[in-house]
């Protein structure tokens, strides 16, 4: 396999994977905080 192709695929899927992991981590930590503050995470905000 060509090194350029390998690099392109690795960077693309590595970055998307990292971004996905970050969103999931963020989702987990924000949900935990909402739970501690007793905020209903499923209701719509009316601001």
């Amino acid at each position: 396999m060509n090194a350029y192709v390998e690099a392109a695929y690795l960077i693309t899927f590595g970055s998307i994977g990292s971004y996905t992991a970050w969103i999931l981590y963020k989702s987990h930590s924000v949900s935990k905080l909402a739970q501690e503050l007793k905020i209903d995470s499923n209701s719509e905000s009316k601001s």
Partner: protein
Amino acid sequence: MKPKKSPVIRVIGFLALIFIGATLVLGLKITPPDAIQGQMVRIIYIHPPLAWVAFLAYGTTAIASGLYLWKRTRARIWDQLSGASAEVGVVFTGLTLVTGSIWGRPTWGVWWTWDPLLTATALLFVLYLGYLALRKLPGDINQRSKRSAIAALIAFIDVPIVQMSVLWWHSLHQKPTVFNPGQPAQIHGIMADTLLIGFIAFTLVWLWLLFTRLGVIKLEEKIELYGLEVALRERRGEVNKDLVETSQDSHSKTSLSTSSKQGPDSQVLVQK
């Protein structure tokens, strides 16, 4: 209380994984090398789909921003959707630039050149980074949303410029291949199928990322509003406390001043 993840989002995530797997297997193992580009052609299965998703994301941001600015349809959801989509768009634009640069090095002999398409894409990346920075500015949430929505609409002007730059100006980048029958270099068979699967895979990834990020943004906003509410309550409580103290102070001062006018005997009475 975890945000409810809709079954549709779960299905999208599952399908995205299948299509990504198919793109990887077909793109890296099954499709043949190109007669001219050799193995380098394999980047085509990820580079145009990344650019497509970036456009899709910015299109969604522009529509959502327009809906937020229009008084009849104004709702928090449009601002939140706009922010979520722009963030995913920035990630995909960055990857479009990186994969394009990797493809450009062996093809054009340079990692980067100030070609109209490349420059307009780099500008697009910077514009939406600015948009995301604008969203983080402190201040009134509705004021911030309005400013961001206007910025998103201004930034979107660059999207058609990027798309049309290869036709408007002389560019190193090739002209549209798939939907351009006039183009001599065309894509057929398994190579065309893999490219289509790549487009579907990245679109599904975008949808999953968008809705998951949207859920996080909604919750973050609720926490922000809750924090503001608590701060306001505390402030009101302090203000009330201050008011009570001030009124008590002024009352006693008034009594004292009244009593001091009346003489030492009455002061003793008030103090009692």
